[in-house]
């Protein structure tokens, strides 16, 4: 079964998301800061990354995503965010934000599973 990496600084989000994915049979690795996040991706080579935008800095998620792409890590990334609507920024797929999908927090377990399945299906 596919391995999913979740990188988010909120322990409760990490736990809830892990539980949902595990219940569907996915294997999960987690990290609660960008540095650990980078390391688990390099070491464990997950099939999918779920990445939060705001961690220690408001744009940590962006930088991490850019770093992965620069290093030719092409694993699909779902980016979690809670503020795009509030600041009127409508992120979309672009060079600036090299991710495969955007998810506005909060997201229901069904939706999350659907997005994960879709991206993994494209990959395989």
């Amino acid at each position, binding site marked *: 079964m596919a391995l999913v990496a979740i990188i988010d*600084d*909120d*322990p*409760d*989000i990490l*736990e*809830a*998301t892990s*539980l*949902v994915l595990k*219940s569907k049979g996915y294997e999960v690795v987690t990290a*609660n*800061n960008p540095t650990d996040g980078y390391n688990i991706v390099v070491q464990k080579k997950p099939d999918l990354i779920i990445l939060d935008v*705001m*961690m*220690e800095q*408001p744009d940590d998620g962006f930088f991490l995503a850019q770093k992965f792409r620069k290093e030719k890590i092409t694993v699909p990334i779902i980016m979690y965010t*809670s*503020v795009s*609507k*509030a*600041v*009127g920024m409508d992120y979309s797929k672009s060079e600036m934000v090299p991710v495969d999908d955007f998810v506005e*927090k*909060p*997201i*229901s*377990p069904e939706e999350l599973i659907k997005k994960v399945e879709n991206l993994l299906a494209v990959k395989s």
Partner: protein
Amino acid sequence: MNNGKAKILIVDDERGLRLGTKRLLESEGYEVDTAENGEEGIRLGKSNDYDIAIIDLKMPDKDGIEVLQNIKTAFPNTVCIIATAYASYETAIQATKLGAYSYIPKPFTPDELLSQLKRAFEHRILTLESERLKKEREERLLELAYEKTRLNTVINSIVDGVLIVNKNGETALFNPAALKYLNLNDLPLEKYCLDILPSELAETIKKIIEKEKYEQTAYSTQIEIKPNKELVIEAVCSPIPHPNGQIAGAAVVISDITEHKKIEAIKNQFVSMVAHELKTPIAAVLGYIKIILDKSLNITPEQAESYLQRSYSRLQGLLEMVNDLLDISRMELKTKQLEIKELDLVEIIKSTIEFLEFEIEKKKIKTIFNPPAEFPKIKADQSQISRLFTNLISNAIKYNKEEGEIRIRLRVDGKYAVVEVEDTGIGMSEKEKANLFSEFYRIKNEKTRGIPGTGLGLSIVKRIVETYSGKIEVVSEPNKGSNFIVYLPISR
């Protein structure tokens, strides 16, 4: 000249002629004064603005020419007629040169005199009218010149930029502020200027001056004049109507909105921070509830309870944050009624420690507070000062180690009452200290993980301290602890 009746002066030494003429003219409706010699004639002629003067050329005391000169000097518009029995070509020329209107030989018939007077009076009326028009025109020109300088002065002293462009896109008028806000060194007058102006502004002006008919529509455009939002302007362009219903040009008013833009950016950033901080716990709680409700996940009752427990504390944190935000906005708006009175800091700190007793004991922390017997009072709002020390001491608990210490010291430094709240906790690096008092700033590292907080506590502390013209300093060393030093002015 009143009611259309001419006022006439007769200067003649011949009594019969004088009186006869007077009677004749009065019967014709003229108003008549008489002088029996040259001197009297000069006196009357210099003190009244007669319409017409009939002056005898030869009088015993003074020459009629002299009388004429005197009257003309005082009232150049008095029409003078020279009357004489010794008519000669030379005197006639001389009299005319000196300003006499005409010349009537003596003796004259009533008809001759009346027809001369009629023409003289008409001449007088025309002279006065043209005189009046000339004066009026001069006055109007003066007024115009004055209006123009006044308008220039007014426009030049307006803080906003003013720029007038005519229908051909040529500069008609501008003030120094317009140059400043457009970051231009000059705008040549009566020269095409749309290629010098920022393109957004030029486009807006074009849109106005290219219209066929005048419409009362103004356009507003925001332009970044200097990069990095160093100078941002708002230009409001409106059409100037031509009397024929077309457009004469465009009036542009330029204001500096750099500061507004900065505040807007800060506000947007703040809103996005607040949204993020509020949404994160909601997302976490929603996630847990979904899991509990989802029968397919088959979680154990123990798991469910732990998730509910977590949700509960996240919601509590959320409530705390909302309260903190409300406090901040109240402080900002200054709507909160402050009750300023003399306060005893020793009392307040003691009761704060009591209030936090439970947390202190939970972590087995030792508090050391040995206040002096006498300590100066401060003037402030009790609930704010309590809040200040609650935030500081609860931080000293949260970021302390198990069985650590909190040392609270009081001292006087000049005009300040100084309170130090020192802990033996995780401390901070210089870099972590930098944004300590900013809203939502929380130090995130291995050691702070799991410590709850809103990121607003210290920003509230700073606001309170500043409300009372005090200051706050921090001394800290990683793994040793932090010392927050609050200076509050002593009340006198």
